[in-house]
């Protein structure tokens, strides 16, 4: 029987009542009137002890008796046909136990440098590497193309001769799948709105009071998680597979392995206890997972196959690049009339170079039109990467918005307010960001600083969406000694879901976080989310709470006769179960637990549909960034960041802040340093390491002040929403706008390295003289 509850919902302290219908057996959702003891506070990471002591075993660290080490042979050429492979010397090499080709029959078509050809398993990693050198591959080298602009040309070598099916992972935006045409290397355009033509938008822009138009370019960024992709596979019986995987999706890996080897799901167990980062690249089992399992079966020994840093850059995903031509207009009140985006990019041999999310979803406008295309090139496939398409899109859109604001002589922050009038959350965030950063004190004139090093301050908005998944199963086991264990199969990428689980369970059960044991990262536990699309916390947390709530109800039933009352009159807090009206009448949690019949009980919580659809379906953020631009060397330093984000009700402020910091720092790294560079003449990546592929370090880290704006929706029992992706969307755009404010020059290409900054400055000098 559903029941109705009245909740306080709204943005920050601006709350109003809302009647929400919830199931009879569900707890009243936490709302704006709840001040909770642990949830939303700063609970230290519960796996911190394991991770700071070196005890945490990542997949990378799993060592099994008799374990073999496997390595791939990869193509040296970006395009080739392999008709002959001679492994006769390698198989005789000491320690080598098995060699398997990735494809049963030749020819093997190579589409990028680094593509897998075969894998060797040997007793040591050194032996495997040495054996690879003995393998002779006969390449029929073909013409290749790694430059997306050249790839678009009529006579370009074609990467695929067949129609490519788009492969989506849990990291990609649902509904991105599109029916588009493929001609040569170009797949697209994907037009939005569907079936639209550009006439309307062109007319709207033509009659606008002010219009800006420019082309923006973004680079390919690799995920570069510290733990590389990989697995350790152990066949525990002829038809039973145990696999440690560095994955963002324990259950998807299980399904793929079960499918590949035609095993029942129950015979495949995936374990991911600790995981060294994924950022969107680690959803499937990968060719490495399948090959490791095949080698292990062949050699009858466990196999470890972890990629090395170079392979990580080449083969297992990246953020596609983009060229975005953006034209936007406004009327003389500063209201946006229309946004037109023509965008293409390359995800190498993959798909997913779309960038239209920010243009479509941040501002209110009269007209919208976008065309997006994927261009195939002979490069490693792209993969979902922290807010796919969005840092790219926001880099272009947010600079265009800025430019239009300057053109209209409207303050860029004010302009953003004017164009999001119906979004209460964004309005609140812009206000907070302005206050925190002292925006009003900012010199309105760009390039005002004297001297060669100029400081500037820029703003950008972000957008992401609320996804949460369904049917996750969380179990709370209470033992008759009072101990509590919460389990779910979900993996923790470092985002802190383990801590979130404990925090919620402790809150609900009236216990301390240290009273709760938690076990995750195992496909033999209840179904958990794949960690993509920032779904994990929003998806799983209500099931955690509902499970703990059901356990609590069970404890109340046991306690009621002991306290000579009924279960509905009881509450739990501070390790006690007591009568709400008369808190002195209480029993300790342990006293009640002793009466559990048998040994223990398990209460299940399941993720169901939200109670209602959010009024504003997007999640937001605004970042204001201060930079110093050395106008003589072109070097840009991000000095300070003010970030305001929302994620519904934050579950643990400490780990939420860490995610925001991480999103910003990755964003700065993307804005200023990172660039996958493919040699134009050979198609080989030249900086496939960690020194020339430049990732921001400690000395590149700005001061960050972040504010998490509480938004209470009452949509689920916890009201939580994810934060992983939103925090990285705005950063590059804000840096671009800050550079403009510092110098008066737009840098429209990422990464904004000295060469590009100096060229832009030079162009301005040329134009003004």
């Amino acid at each position, binding site marked *: 029987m559903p029941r109705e509850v009245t909740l306080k919902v709204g943005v920050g302290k601006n709350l109003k009542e809302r009647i929400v219908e919830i199931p009879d057996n569900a707890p009243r959702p936490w709302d704006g009137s709840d001040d909770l003891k642990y949830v939303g506070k700063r609970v230290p990471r519960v796996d911190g002890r394991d991770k700071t002591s070196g005890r945490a075993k*990542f997949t990378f660290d799993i*060592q099994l008796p008799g374990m073999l080490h496997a390595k791939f042979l990869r193509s040296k050429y970006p395009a080739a046909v392999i008709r002959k492979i001679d492994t006769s010397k390698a198989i005789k090499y000491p320690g080598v136990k098995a060699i398997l080709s990735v494809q049963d029959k030749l020819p093997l078509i190579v589409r990028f440098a680094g593509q897998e050809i075969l894998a060797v398993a040997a007793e040591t990693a050194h032996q495997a590497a040495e054996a690879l050198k003995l393998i002779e591959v006969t390449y029929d080298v073909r013409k290749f193309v790694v430059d997306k602009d050249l790839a678009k040309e009529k006579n370009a070598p074609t990467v695929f001769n067949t129609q490519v099916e788009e492969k989506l992972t849990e990291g990609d935006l649902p509904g991105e799948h599109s029916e588009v045409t493929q001609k040569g290397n170009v797949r697209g355009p994907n037009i939005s709105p569907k079936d639209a033509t550009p006439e309307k938008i062109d007319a709207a822009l033509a009659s606008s009071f002010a219009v800006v138009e420019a082309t923006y370019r973004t680079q390919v960024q690799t995920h570069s998680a510290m733990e590389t992709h990989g697995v350790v596979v152990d066949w525990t019986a002829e038809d039973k597979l145990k696999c440690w995987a560095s994955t963002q999706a324990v259950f998807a890996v299980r399904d793929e392995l079960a499918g590949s080897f035609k095993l029942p799901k129950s015979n495949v167990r995936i374990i991911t206890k600790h995981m060294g980062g994924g950022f969107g690249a680690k959803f499937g089992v990968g060719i490495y997972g399948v090959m490791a399992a095949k080698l292990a079966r062949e050699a009858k020994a466990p196999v470890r196959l972890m990629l090395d840093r170079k392979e990580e850059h080449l083969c297992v995903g990246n953020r596609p690049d983009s060229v975005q031509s953006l034209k936007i207009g406004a009327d003389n009140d500063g209201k946006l009339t229309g946004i037109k985006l023509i965008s293409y990019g390359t995800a190498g041999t993959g798909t997913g170079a779309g960038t239209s999310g920010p243009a479509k979803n941040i501002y209110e406008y009269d007209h919208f039109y976008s065309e997006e295309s994927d261009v195939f090139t002979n490069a490693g496939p792209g993969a979902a990467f922290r807010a796919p398409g969005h840092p790219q899109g926001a880099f272009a859109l947010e600079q265009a918005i800025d430019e239009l604001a300057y053109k209209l002589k409207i303050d860029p922050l004010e302009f953003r307010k004017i164009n999001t009038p119906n979004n209460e959350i964004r309005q609140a965030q812009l206000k907070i960001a302005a206050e925190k950063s002292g925006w009003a004190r900012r010199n309105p004139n760009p390039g005002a600083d004297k001297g060669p090093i100029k400081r500037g301050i820029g703003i950008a908005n972000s957008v992401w969406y609320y996804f949460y998944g369904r049917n996750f199963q969380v179990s709370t086991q209470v033992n008759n000694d009072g101990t509590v264990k919460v389990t779910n199969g979900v993996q923790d990428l470092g985002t802190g879901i383990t801590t979130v689980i404990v925090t919620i369970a402790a809150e609900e059960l009236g216990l301390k976080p240290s009273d709760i044991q938690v076990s995750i990262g195992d496909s033999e536990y209840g179904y958990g989310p794949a960690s993509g699309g920032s779904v994990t916390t929003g998806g799983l947390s209500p099931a955690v709470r509902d499970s703990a709530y059901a356990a609590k109800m069970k404890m109340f039933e046991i306690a009621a006769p002991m306290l000579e009352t009924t279960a509905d009159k009881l509450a739990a807090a501070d390790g006690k179960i007591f009568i709400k009206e008369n808190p002195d009448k209480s029993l300790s949690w342990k006293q009640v637990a002793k009466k559990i019949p048998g040994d223990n009980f398990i209460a299940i919580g399941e993720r169901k549909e939200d109670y209602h659809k959010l009024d504003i379906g997007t999640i937001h953020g605004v970042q204001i960034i201060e930079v110093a631009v050395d106008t003589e060397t072109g070097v840009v330093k991000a000095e300070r960041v003010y970030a305001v984000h929302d994620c519904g009700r934050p579950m643990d402020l400490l780990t939420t802040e860490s995610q925001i910091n*991480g999103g910003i720092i990755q964003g700065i790294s993307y804005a200023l340093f990172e660039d996958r560079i493919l040699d134009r003449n050979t198609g080989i990546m030249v900086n496939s390491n960690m020194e020339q592929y430049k990732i921001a370090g400690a000395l590149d880290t700005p001061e960050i002040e972040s504010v998490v704006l509480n938004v209470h929706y009452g949509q689920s029992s916890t009201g939580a929403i994810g934060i992983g992706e939103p925090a990285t969307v705005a950063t590059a755009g804000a840096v671009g706008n800050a550079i403009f404010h510092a110098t008066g020059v737009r840098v429209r290409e990422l990464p904004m390295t000295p060469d590009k900054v100096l060229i832009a400055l030079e162009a301005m000098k040329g134009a003004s003289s």
Partner: protein
Amino acid sequence: MAHSKDVKKNGPISKGVSRRGFLKGLGATSLGVAAASKSELLAKLEHAPSPNGTLLGKNAVALTLNINGKIHQVKVEPRITLAEVLRDNLGLTGTKTGCERGACGACTVIMEGATINACMTLAVDAIGQKIETIEGLESDGKLSKLQESFIENDGLQCGFCTPGIIMSSKNLLDTNPKPQLEEVKKAVSGHICRCGTYPKVFESILAAGK
């Protein structure tokens, strides 16, 4: 196409090897003897005795290493790095490798009071040297103040770079117990944290230094 050899047809290998036996299988033993000097240890390794030095062959030699105050003996080739010995021979997997080229700092350990990249250090160069790894920071099952501070201040996310960063932090505090922010940043500038946890790493170190 499949190629295999010497595969025993008796199915998966037997399980239940004890940890000690397992380590032994990898050529590692823990010795209860006191640390010898580097020259004494080197002298034991002589294959071609010379007053001017020691020449080791390319095959495995027995090395005695002092790690976290414990003496270990391993048998490895001269090409094997300290990171490999720690992880593969001794099971001390707290030390990670992220790039194998000294660029990411995940493998950082302390050797004779200085931080080094274990991936760029030959194990044979570590004989007779006092090596500290992340596993040595706890005493009697109690985390050090620094480790507690990393937990308290959330100086970690995925945790893969964390042991290395903590070793650089420990070395900083050993030599400079109350560092300034700039000194902290510099001390951990040889680490890449892809999760971007740096601000809270700084806080963790500064708080532990108080």
